[in-house]
């Protein structure tokens, strides 16, 4: 399947292991990724806060670039925040033709225009795995079932709310996909309070206490529920849950130390890729225990 691929900013910035692991996992799933290297930031909710027409135009530009990729089935992103921010813009662009024309008028110089189409889609890798690749096909490709690994899903707000905007009417189980995938990969999903809550990242520069209390609390809940690691389709969640974890400890007054994997890393492990090539050594919270478990699986 050929896809217009939007990696987002953070996967090429502070979480290079996400973009890297996605690149390795794609061929294993017969995905041909055409990277949108001219596309701009989705705005991450912040440009939307600043100016709606601006953020809608920036994302219309990305959509137009994606629509220009010949033979692509659709557009794929690997960030919950990109998914939510872009879906919000797409909803407004699709709702009003006059508004869409105004937005497109800013793209004319580049010869670009976003076209409303019922067939065109923009899906996070999580949605794509379940809806486009299919669980049966994925299960066939699993060569190293992650048996015994207890994985706590962490979805990220932008990919689960608001359900009305995010296509839950046609795909009512989108808030359960991570749990389902963890099982398909042979691991055990961990049920805990924080799976669909906020990591706190949007507040990290404005209210560090509220932000890190959130991260700390969800990590603690996952640990108490017996998680070996968390998995998330959102690199911003990853930053607050992994990179900030040593700081978050102070706000919940306890030791945390639980690794947080990116979704393509978890999928990659089950598809036979090695932890090191998936960038699992590039985490702030060491992934050694998860790596050991995976090695034991290989030996068994």
């Amino acid at each position: 399947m050929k896809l217009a691929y939007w990696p987002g900013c953070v996967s090429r910035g502070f979480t290079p292991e996400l973009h890297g692991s996605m690149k390795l996992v794609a061929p294993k799933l017969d995905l041909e990724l055409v990277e949108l290297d001219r596309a701009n930031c989705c705005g991450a909710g912040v440009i939307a806060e600043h100016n709606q027409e601006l953020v809608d135009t920036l994302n219309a530009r990305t959509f137009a670039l994606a629509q220009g990729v010949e033979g692509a089935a659709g557009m794929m992103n690997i960030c919950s925040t990109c998914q939510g921010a872009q879906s919000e813009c797409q909803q407004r662009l699709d709702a009003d033709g006059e508004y869409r024309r105004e937005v497109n008028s800013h793209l004319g110089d580049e010869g670009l225009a976003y076209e409303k189409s019922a067939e065109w889609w923009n899906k996070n890798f999580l949605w794509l795995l379940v809806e486009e690749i299919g669980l049966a096909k994925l299960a066939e490709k699993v060569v190293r079932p992650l048996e015994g690994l207890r994985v706590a899903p962490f979805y990220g707000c932008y990919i689960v709310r608001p359900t009305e905007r995010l296509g839950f009417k046609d795909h009512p189980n989108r808030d359960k996909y991570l749990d389902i995938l963890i099982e398909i990969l042979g691991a055990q999903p961990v049920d805990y309070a924080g799976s669909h809550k906020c990591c706190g990242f949007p507040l990290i520069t404005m209210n560090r206490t509220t932000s890190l209390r959130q991260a700390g609390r969800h990590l603690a809940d996952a640990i108490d529920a017996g998680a070996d690691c968390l998995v998330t389709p959102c690199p911003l969640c990853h930053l607050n849950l992994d990179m900030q974890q040593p700081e978050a400890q102070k706000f919940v007054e306890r030791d945390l130390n639980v690794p947080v994997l990116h979704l393509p890393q978890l999928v990659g492990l089950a598809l036979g890729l090695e932890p090191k090539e998936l960038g699992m050594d590039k985490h702030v919270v060491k992934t050694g225990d998860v790596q050991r478990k995976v090695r034991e699986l290989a030996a068994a």
Partner: protein
Amino acid sequence: MAESYTLRLRRYDPESGEPAYWSEYEVEQDPERSVLQGILDARDQEDGSIAIRCSCRAAICGSCGVRINGTSALACNTQLGDAQAKAGVGKPIVVEPMGNMPVLKDLIVDMDAVHWKKIQRVVPWLLPEGDPPEREYIVPAEAMIDVTQSMACIQCGACVSACLALEVDPEFVGPAALAKAYRFVGDPRDGQHEERLRDLAEDPHGIYDCTHCFACIEVCPKDVAPMDQIMRLRRRATADYDIKDKNNGYGHEHAFVNIIERYGTLHEAQLLPRSFGDGSLIRGQTEPAAVKQLVESLPTAARGLASGKVSLRKALLHPKLPDQKSVRKIFKEIESKDERLEINMYIIGENADDEEGAMAEGSQES
């Protein structure tokens, strides 16, 4: 056709001295009837001591807010059949009191202690300037359309119950009260727009304590979208009144926007220092107030470098997009407009599409 439902209710009686407990009740009802009806059936037929607040039973009075299968909602506005589908086959429908507020008894929470106190916090009445007009105030229709959405609030508290920022910061002014604040900031008769915005921007638990989780938007039975109203408050505070708050809200927004205008994609290493300088990189590193916060973030930066996530090169250099000129031009064109162009889905609806004038109704003066 009537079906059998198991309702699992969270019970609590403060006078008993006992902790909260669960009770299950079997009720026979049509799937189209409400969870509230199910609870009232259980009360009438099995246990007269079940406590729930309710009145209109038609999603107007906002009294029967509860959490159904973990989601905040009006009990009268949730059908038994849907609640069962959400709970799963063979599983009970779980009903609990709302979150983020103390429980008085069973499904009744203390709205006064939290919700109404926060509503009062935002001065929920008009503060007009000057003498009142001889007759009524004349208000342009567009201006009232702009605040219609926040006026639709029925004060049920579902958003307060679901708020993920309140969960960790009980002092957060919260979604319902901030939506109410926008109702007055967007009202041309009010004379205290700037004062209201400054107050809520400077409060560490005000508009910059919203964690942007969409929980309030998801649960609101009246589509008030409180988080959207909070974002409009932020937009007014920064763009219309240039309020440089001490919570870094203005700085964060401007830092982010400036970086994307300059590079096209996010240069993360510049976000923090720029936010302390109201968007400027140089000012951000020399502001005395910024130093403390920058120092606080040093251990995280050091860990990022140590883990190999972040290289020194990446921290210092960030490539511009190949067509960054075009992206910049978009910023220039749109930011130089006299009026911000905004459309509100609540007003235009999903299918406005090519209808004439749908866009104009949502536009707003800047």
